[in-house]
């Protein structure tokens, strides 16, 4: 029997992997993808729990998350392009204008 805990375990692993990626990678686009990974792991939890509790609310939330992710992708990638234009790099270590 596949319980909700199975899904959540997978979700937890994916989330941790995403976190690890966000913290360690230097390429902004890869970091962006890791964030997408984390978002997706959360989506999985939502849907699993939605089914477990027999409510559609969680799925509606996933729907919204996807919208936000789409918007985020559009804006985030645009940011990266404009940043690349200025610095010839999308290495996050080069995003250091706030550095003292």
């Amino acid at each position: 029997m596949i319980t909700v805990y199975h899904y959540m375990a997978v979700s937890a692993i994916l989330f941790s992997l995403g976190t690890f990626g966000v913290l360690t990678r230097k390429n902004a686009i890869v970091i962006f993808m890791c964030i997408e990974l984390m978002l997706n792991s959360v989506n999985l939890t939502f849907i699993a729990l939605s089914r477990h509790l027999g409510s559609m609310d969680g799925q509606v939330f996933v729907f919204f998350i996807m919208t936000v992710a789409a918007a985020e992708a559009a804006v985030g990638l645009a940011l990266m392009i404009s940043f690349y234009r200025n610095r010839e790099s999308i290495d996050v270590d080069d995003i250091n204008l706030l550095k003292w």
Partner: protein
Amino acid sequence: MELLELLFFYLVAFVAVLSGVLVVSCKSPVHSALALVNTFFCLAVFYVMLSAPFMAAIQVMVYAGAIMVLILFVIMLLNLGADAHRKYTHGVVWGAICGILTLLVTGFFVKRGSITGMQGDVTTELIQGFGHTELIGKALFTDFLLPFEITSILLLVAIVGAVILAKKEV
């Protein structure tokens, strides 16, 4: 039957996690992107297994289709091949500690956490009878109408923002 189902679950889960590891570890962003697409497909399979076919569909369409294409597009546009000479990670040890801690914390929740929340009346039978898409639509256009409309504004803003940001001369 159930055992087969469980085995299938483990298989898909394994692929998902493995793809996830590849996303994080591949040196070339293109490889990462492809691995990520793989993960997205695995998740779509999970959604189907959770009898949420509509979510699976848009997962494939929005994520694997739209977003990932966009990302790949940007990668190609900026010509971001793997730079052989530069380090592509930093702070692996601290990152790993954080990742493991996160895993512990989330794992703890999964193991110990009791699931609370309002028990709804949506059952597998209802989904099969009424239809998943219809149920989502009903929820969206009744209880979540206002957020749904606001989403459109969000998207509009995102479009405008993306255009402004990506324009050559601001």
